C-alpha cells in the first residue's frame, strides 16, 4: 500500500502587534473560535495550551458541511512556536498545524511576523488529491483572514495609554 505524500499549505503575514500580545491570544485554546476562520465553536478546551492536552472544535468545511475535530498540543516554545496535531478532517489525515512567530519592527513599532502552516496527507487516492488541489486556494485565503483577525484582536486588547 502506498502512502500519499504530505501536502503543505503555508501563509505568512506581518501583524501590527507585539509578539507577546499575539502569543497571549494564540496560547488560549478557548479562543480559536474568535480568530481562526472556519472554527464555529470551541466545544472543549483546557485554557492556556499545554503539551499533551487536547481541545475540540466544531468546524465549517465546505459550504454548509461541518465537522467535529480534536487537536492535541505537541510542542510549545513560548512566543516562537506552537505545533498541534488534529483529527476529524477526513479525507485529510496526519494533520499538523504549526504557528511560528518572529518579532519584527514596522515603522518603529513592535510587530509580529507569523507563519501559519498546515501539513496533511490526503486520503481517498486520486479523489482526495483532487479535493486537496481544489481546497488549497481557499485555505490560503482563510489563513490570511485568520491572521488579520488575530491582529485585530491583539490590537484591540493592547494596553491603553496612561
Amino acid at each position, binding site marked *: 500500500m502506498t502512502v500519499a505524500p504530505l501536502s503543505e499549505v503555508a501563509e505568512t503575514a506581518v501583524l501590527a502587534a507585539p509578539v507577546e500580545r499575539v502569543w497571549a491570544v494564540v496560547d488560549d485554546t478557548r479562543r480559536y473560535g474568535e480568530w481562526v476562520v472556519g472554527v464555529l465553536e470551541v466545544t472543549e478546551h483546557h485554557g492556556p495550551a499545554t503539551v499533551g492536552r487536547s481541545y475540540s472544535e466544531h468546524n465549517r468545511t465546505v459550504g454548509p458541511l461541518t465537522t467535529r475535530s480534536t487537536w492535541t498540543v505537541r510542542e510549545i516554545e513560548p512566543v516562537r512556536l506552537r505545533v498541534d496535531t488534529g483529527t476529524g478532517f477526513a479525507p485529510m489525515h496526519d494533520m499538523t498545524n504549526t504557528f511560528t512567530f518572529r518579532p519584527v519592527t514596522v515603522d518603529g513599532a513592535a510587530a509580529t511576523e507569523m507563519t501559519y502552516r498546515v501539513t496533511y496527507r490526503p486520503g481517498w487516492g486520486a479523489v482526495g488529491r483532487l479535493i486537496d488541489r481544489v481546497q488549497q486556494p481557499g485555505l490560503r485565503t482563510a489563513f490570511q483572514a485568520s491572521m488579520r483577525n488575530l491582529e485585530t484582536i491583539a490590537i484591540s486588547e493592547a494596553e*491603553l495609554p496612561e
Partner: protein
Amino acid sequence: MPAAQRADVVVVGAGLAGLTAARALAAAGLDVAVVEARDRVGGRTVNHDLGDGQVVEAGGQFVGPTQNRVLALATALGIATYPTHDRGARVYVHNGRARRFTGDVMPDPAALPGLALTILRVDRLSRQVPLDAPWRARHARRWDAVPFASWIRHAGAGRGALDLVDVFLASGFGAPATEASLLYALWYIAGMGDERTPGTITRGIATTGGAQEARFVGGSQSLSTTMAQALGDRVTLGAPVRAIEQDASTVTVRSEGRTWIARHAIVALPPALAARIAWTPLLPPQQDALFQRMAFGTLMKCEAVYDEPFWRDDDLSGQGVFRSGSPLCSTFDNTPTSGHPGVLMGFLGGQQWRTWSGRSARERRGAVLRSFAQVAGRRALHPRGYFEQDWTSEEWTRGGPTSAIGPGVLTTLGEWRDRPFGRVRWAGAEHANHWNGYMDGAVRSGEAAARAVLDQED
C-alpha cells in the same frame, strides 16, 4: 448616638425621583429630609469625568419628545438639552458583516417584514392596555401568561424580528423577550408617550423624534446635583436605610447610627431593594412579592474616548445596531456638546451581559473596541481611554436599566405597585405609567408621590 432628626417627610433615595419629590415638598413649605445610601446623588444617572471640565454620562442619559416632566424639570433648573449626534450613516452588523445604512430601515431584508409586522401588532395591541391598570385589559390574563418572545415566535414574525426586538430590549430592559410577559411589554410600550400621545415602539427606539433625541448639557446627573444643592443640608449622603418602622402617627427611618422621624415617608428606591429593608410591620406580602419580582435587568455601558470624533469626518453617525456577533446591542456617539473629546458608547445588556460579564476585562474591552471599529472604522481600536459602568455591581441599584416583569405577575400582583403602605408612599422610575424605567418616569413618580403627601397634609 445622635438624637433622632424630625421632619414632616423623610425621602429615602436621592435619585431623580426622590429629589423631585423632596424639591416639591420643600417648595410647599414642608420640612423634608432626604436620606441616600451612596456618597453621591443621582441614582442611575451618573457623570463620568473626562477631564478639562468635560463629562459624559455613564447611566441614564437620553431624553425625547413626550418626556415632558423631566424636560420641564430641566427647564426649571436652568439645564439645557442638546441633540444626540444623529448625522451620517448608521451601521448594521449581522453575521460578521457591517453595512452602512441611512434612515430607519436596516439592511436586513429577511428580518424586516417580520419586524414591521411585529411593530404594527405591538403598537395596535398596546392601545388596548389601560396604562393605570394593565391587568384590566380585555385579554390581560391571556397576554400575561405568555412570554413576549413566545408571542413573537407564534406570530410567525421569524427569527430576525425576535433578534431585533432583543436588540432593543437589551438596552431597554437589560433582559431578552423571553423574560418579560407580553402584557408587561405591551404596557411598557403603551407608556412611551404622554397623556395626549399614545406610546409607540418607534418613539422608544428612534434617535431624532424618539427617546434618544437629546442629552442634558453637563450630563444627566446635573439634574440631581442641582436639586440637591438647593436642598442643602436636608440631604444626607452615605446613610443606607436599613429599617423603617411606622405606627398610626409617625414613620421612623433608621440608617446605621442615625434615625429620622416624620409624618410621612417616600421610598424612592429600586423596588427589589425596597423589599430588602427591614419593615415593621412587615410589608404586605403581595407588595413584597411584587417588589422582589421587579428585580432589574443586567446592563453595563462601555465607553471609549478618542481625541476627536473622527468617524464624523467619514460621514458616520457612530450609531450601530448589532443583530449578532458582538457583546453590544447598539452604539451611540456620546461626544460631549463641546465636540471633543470623541466618545463612543455601547450598551452591553441582557443575554450578552450574561456571556461577557464573566470574561476578563481585557477581552471584553477588546471585543467592545472591535465592535466600535465596525461602526466607526479601525481607528476606534486605538482609544486614549476606556471605561465601563456595570450597573449590576452597584450595591444601591443592583442592575439596570429597569425591571422586566415576567409572566403571571402583573395580573396577580400589579395593583400593589404604588399602593401606599401606611404612611409610606413609593417613587422611582418603576412607579410611573408613562416612560416607566426612564428619567421621565422617575420625575413623574416623584411628583406624584409629593402630590399625594401634600393632599394628605391638607
